[in-house]
């Protein structure tokens, strides 16, 4: 039996506006740019892809299934700039063939710094998804598939999840295959699903690469690769960015046609089927334990944190941001807390990456800044202003009771 388990990551960051040391106002985000990118991606990817998957689900009457992880910051932007996309996601949710996964609302790296903040964001995301789509996620994926044993143990302890996702990196698997269900070390109940990065990347990265020996990739060929897993695996976990459809791989590469034909080709083999992550977890027992003492992620060749925290600027910005946690939360000011949380969006740190020479091209493509230095300067200027607001707020709170007393005395 080989089950194909698709999960698509859907995320758009809230990009900062150009903010200099001379700026004073409290509006940090580039609404115009965010709106136009959101609408552009909606038209090129979200709308056509959602329509396609809706068609496929209807055509295969319950035999074709997929999963999404939608970040909170994306949902907010869709609500504001492209509400029609939200309604198509809702239509997908209604089919019963689509599962929504849980993650941090702000697509943040908070697990690495503050477990409190991390859990608050996870819970906020659970509530948001339940409100919007009527299902409470049972599967967790951390930002950029950042994962280690501690994370698994923490998520099991919440009792809210059945499984967690991670990158099927060679160095954690060794000789083993990603095509089975595993158990994280230190867990009794929670299961682990690992991304089959080779097959996932064939679609997400290599699909349109004409120098690739397998180009052009047809649905038939891909289905053969999947079918060959039969007998030595149970699930093929294809995890990728949703923007693969129409944005990273443009429509004229044939990516939509490929996807439209894929279910048919996969289902031609009688032993194949499609399952959502929850169904995979229910269908298969864990075949072994995976020990991941060190962090893995799905990024770059290194599969580590170096894309976000690889240079002194990144660590500094990250550290300075989380240093404010207590003070910010103490204010109880919703706007202030929301601004602080939006600064946690992992993309802000990704923009500061200086690993130019190998993965640099990918980094550059998604980067609204000319250089990582510009992005750091901008971020730090915003953070400075936020810190100032926080301090002023505290001052006011201290003064407020005194003023009340004065008022009473008068």
């Amino acid at each position, binding site marked *: 039996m080989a089950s194909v388990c698709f999960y698509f990551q859907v995320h758009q960051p809230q990009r900062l506006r150009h903010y200099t*040391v001379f700026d004073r106002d409290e509006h940090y985000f580039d609404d115009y740019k965010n709106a136009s990118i959101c609408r552009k991606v909606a038209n090129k990817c979200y709308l056509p892809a959602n329509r396609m998957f809706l068609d496929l689900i209807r055509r295969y009457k319950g035999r074709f299934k997929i999963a999404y992880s939608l970040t909170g910051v994306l949902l907010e932007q869709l609500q504001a700039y492209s509400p029609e996309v939200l309604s198509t996601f809702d239509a997908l949710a209604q089919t019963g063939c689509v599962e929504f996964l849980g993650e941090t609302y702000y697509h943040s790296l908070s697990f690495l710094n503050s477990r409190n903040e991390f859990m608050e964001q996870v819970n906020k995301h659970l509530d948001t998804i339940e409100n919007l789509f009527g299902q409470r996620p049972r599967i967790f994926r951390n930002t950029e598939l950042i994962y280690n044993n501690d994370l698994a143990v923490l998520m099991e302890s919440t009792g809210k999840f059945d499984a967690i996702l991670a990158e099927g990196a060679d160095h954690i698997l060794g000789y083993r295959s990603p095509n089975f269900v595993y158990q994280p070390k230190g867990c009794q109940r929670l299961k682990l699903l690992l991304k089959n990065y080779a097959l996932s990347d064939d679609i997400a990265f290599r699909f349109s690469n004409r120098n690739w020996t397998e180009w052009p990739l047809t649905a038939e060929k891909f289905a053969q690769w999947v079918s060959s897993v039969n007998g030595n695996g149970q699930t093929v976990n294809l995890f990728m960015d949703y923007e693969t459809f129409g944005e990273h791989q443009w429509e004229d590469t044939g990516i939509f046609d490929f996807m439209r034909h894929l279910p048919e080709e996969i289902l031609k083999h009688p032993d194949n089927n499609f399952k959502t992550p929850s169904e995979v977890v229910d269908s298969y027992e864990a075949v072994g334990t995976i020990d991941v003492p060190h962090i893995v992620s799905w990024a770059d060749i290194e599969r580590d944190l170096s894309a976000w925290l690889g240079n002194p600027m990144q660590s500094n910005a990250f550290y300075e941001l989380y240093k404010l946690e207590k003070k910010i939360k103490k204010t109880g000011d919703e706007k202030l807390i929301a601004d602080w949380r939006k600064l946690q969006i992992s993309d802000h740190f990704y923009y500061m990456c200086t690993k130019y020479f190998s993965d640099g091209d990918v980094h550059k493509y998604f980067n609204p800044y000319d250089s990582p230095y510009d992005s750091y300067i901008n971020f730090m200027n915003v953070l400075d202003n936020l810190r100032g607001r926080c301090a002023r707020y505290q001052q006011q709170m201290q003064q407020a009771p005194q003023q009340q007393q004065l008022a009473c005395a008068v």
Partner: protein
Amino acid sequence: MRVFMLGWEFPPFISGGLGTACYGLTKALDQLGIGVTFVLPRMVDSQYATHVKLLCPGSKQSSEYIKELKNVKFCTVSSPLQPYTTSDSYQRMVEEILRRKQKGSTSGPGIGGLNYCGDMYSEVHRYAAMAAQLAEGEDFDVIHAHDWMTFLAGITVATLSGKPLIVHIHSTEFDRSGENVNQMVYDIERKGMHLADRVVAVSNYTRNIIIERYGVSPDKVDVVHNGSENNGNGGWVSGDVDIKKGEKIVLFMGRITMQKGPEYFLMAAKKVLEVMDNVKFVMAGSGDLMRKSIEMAAGLGIGHKVLFTGFLQGEAVQRIYKMADLFVMPSVSEPFGLVPLEALQNDVPVIISKQSGVSEVLRHALKVDFWDVNEIANKIVAVLKYPPLETTLRNYGNFEVRKLRWKDAAAKCAKIYADMLIPV
């Protein structure tokens, strides 16, 4: 392979980047085993001492070899031509020489009988004539001429010898003078570029100027970026600079002329000082806008925060780099710009103008539009305020600058020479 190279300055006779570039390129060509006959105009009345013993020719040529450059032969043509001179300053210079000569205060042999022409235009022609004479006795395959003053000489030698000519553009009249170009200089530059078999530009930025403003066919123009000479972490300074300072130092280094954008530096300084107090701005260099800049600093009310050092050389340069926290180059139009590389070699992070050739080869530098004073100030403040930014820029920048080697520039030139010698 032998190159007949027409330069106009060579260490230690340096007043700007051109001499450094010629030295770097020649030395690297030498290491590639390519022979160079280096011709340069030389003012007879020089007060500099040099390890190259230069003979004053009258009409006879002189030639010298420098020890470490075994394939390079130096020839000098007696002439008061110097880079970065204008017609006016040339006139003054010639008059000065004549005056001193009358007083009998000049030193050095063989002055008598020299015939200086009264204006720069004739002098460029005279240099051409003398270079042609000099070329007669030389054996070479290609002619490589650096910047406009040598172009007529290059053309003459090419015509007489029938060898291919390359003109190398380190700066154009538009860089030096903005829109107020000297028509004579422009005409010579244009003529040189059009008559040359190939044109080498020091950057894509300059290549675009050559194509757009001089109407040169794009397929004739190659880009050869400059390298950087010193690959260490700056020089060791005797009498270690032990500066205990509470103040940050932001450095401007270069000629204080329109081209280098000193007024943008000062306006940015003014803005920085609005939000930071413990900063001093140092302007190292001299030039025709120096007095104006001093007045401007005073006018902006930041006179006490801006220091003018005048032109610095040798150890003083090293010392100022040791003191500086940041180097800023707000050039209005910079064909290449070697000074930021020097700053990075000395562990000083740099902010450079986007209107420069060097911004094409440096990634680990902050880049600004020269006119965007607000952004220059924003970036200055950021570097001074956030140590991780300074550290990252400094470490990665220093590493990056080591990869910009003259060897690669020379290899590109060698390829151009070879291409030209293929019979059509």
